[in-house]
């Protein structure tokens, strides 16, 4: 009988669910609206429907991401650091450093033998996160994809001096109003974010291969800017959005396997697939 494992990654901006056996059998990506966050069960249901499975077919569920505590039906919560590490290690075995650019934060993870051994996360300002990108894209009236592509056509360097997301947005708007080309602004923004990310991941002493994951990895302009900053070629995870969820599912699989090896039963939450309730 095939064993299925689910990884549920409730990010700050996106909710991702994968169901895996040996390979991914179902994947669902949705937005993490403030209310949706409690509705992880719906996303799970839709993944199960895609896979043609019932919840009882799932051997183990691991929740990760910002909203991991709001997944009552998960058997275990594991941070996105460990999950991204596990996910990327399986997707790109040569990876030694992972840079995850998510919605509200950005992290660098150092890998050794497929395990996270050290990590850093951005602390202070929102600058250097996917949110920064979104805010600016919105100000420029572009989708994230468009902004990424447009930046590749830029002819001039523009410096965005403000690191604060909110003020950078205003700076961009003002520059736009002055008639600076959108493509140039996009590059400026990517450079600004890349600088922040670089400053942070440097604390880890970056080693090749370096894999970028998370929603930000979808942005070619940003990846290009980061490559320049780091002075190293970057690999983009084949599943930028799903690395965390895949890692979560794999860690679930590991848990079940370890338990079997030790001959002890797996502890499961035994919670039905329902929405999170809050004690307020």
């Amino acid at each position, binding site marked *: 009988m095939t064993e299925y494992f689910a990884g549920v990654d409730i990010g*700050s901006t996106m909710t991702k669910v994968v169901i895996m056996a040996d390979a991914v059998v179902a994947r669902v990506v949705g937005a993490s*609206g*403030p*209310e949706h*966050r*409690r509705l992880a069960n719906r996303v799970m249901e839709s993944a199960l429907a895609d896979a043609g499975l019932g919840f009882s077919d799932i051997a183990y569920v691991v929740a990760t991401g910002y*909203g991991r505590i*709001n997944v009552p039906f998960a058997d275990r919560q594991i941070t996105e650091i460990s999950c991204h590490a596990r996910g990327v290690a399986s997707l790109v075995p040569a990876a030694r450093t992972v840079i995850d650019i998510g919605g*509200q934060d950005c992290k660098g993870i150092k890998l050794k033998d497929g395990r996270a051994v050290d990590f850093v996360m951005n602390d202070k*300002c*929102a600058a250097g996160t996917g*949110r920064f990108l979104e805010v600016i894209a919105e100000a420029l*009236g572009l989708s994230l994809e468009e902004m990424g592509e447009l930046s590749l056509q830029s002819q001039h360097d523009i410096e965005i001096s403000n690191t*604060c*997301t*909110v*003020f950078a947005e*205003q700076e961009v*708007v*003002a520059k*736009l*109003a*002055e*008639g600076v080309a959108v493509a140039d602004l996009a590059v400026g923004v990517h450079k600004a974010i890349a600088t922040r990310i670089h400053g942070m991941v440097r604390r880890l002493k970056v080693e090749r291969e370096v894999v970028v994951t998370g929603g930000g990895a979808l942005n070619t302009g940003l990846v290009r800017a980061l490559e320049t900053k780091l002075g190293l070629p970057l690999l983009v995870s084949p599943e930028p959005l799903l690395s965390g969820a895949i890692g979560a599912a794999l860690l679930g699989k590991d848990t079940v396997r370890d338990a079997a090896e030790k001959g002890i039963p797996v502890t499961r939450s035994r919670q039905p697939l329902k929405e999170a309730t*809050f*004690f*307020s």
Partner: protein
Amino acid sequence: MSASDNDSSGYRPAVIGVDIGSSFSKAVVLSGGTIISWAILPSVGSYRAVADEVINQALARAGVAAEDIAGVSATGYGAASVASASQSSSDLSCQGRGIAYLFPSARTVVDIGAQFTRAFRLDGAGHVVAFVLSEKCAGGSGRLLAIIARVLQIDLDEMDRLARESKKKVDFTTSCAVFTESEVVSRIAEGESREDIAAGVYRALAAKAQSLVERLKFAPDCALAGGGAKNTSLVKSIEEGVGVDVLVPDEPQLVAALGAALMAEDKVAVGKSRS
């Protein structure tokens, strides 16, 4: 001295004041010291185009042709983009002037604009004699409200309405707008209601405003200006904090544009009395 005093002929030249703010652009048409029309547009795209558009809208509503305008006075972040401007002044002076016109008794003014919150003191003649600004972090600005409204998936008016229904105190402890945003997200996840969250955000902003007023040394009466003043909940929080009732213009966002228009009128009057 207002322009109409000088005008014995009965001819009342129209002037226009334009305030290109970082998030909204405003225009006010004035004739003989009376507001005859106004317009507000979001500042998106090129400032130049927005400036033209907001002027055109205001003129159209006033039924005045551009050629008949005796003076155009610009102010705000993008004042330089108002091509037709015949003069410009700092938005602080314009706001002072506008408030003095609306509320002659006002001595302390709190302006909650998109970029920052500031407080200033006026003398009897509408001159700004002292001012303080919020620290340079978006947490103290009106922009915070827009960001939070977005997270709550409601518009600003709705957020204002909801806050009035708040039953429970939810506090926000960070000063960063972006992190307040994520704090809001966590609070939603914890099950806090939108009402309480909205009220908490207004309280946080009101506290900033209050500390500015204190730094300035408060003198009655107190008036508000800027887009933030459109939120009755915020106004109420400020009143509670400062401990007095505040004067709020019907259209608080227009105050600087109005002041600019008044200054344009001054100039026209001076020009006329010279000729």
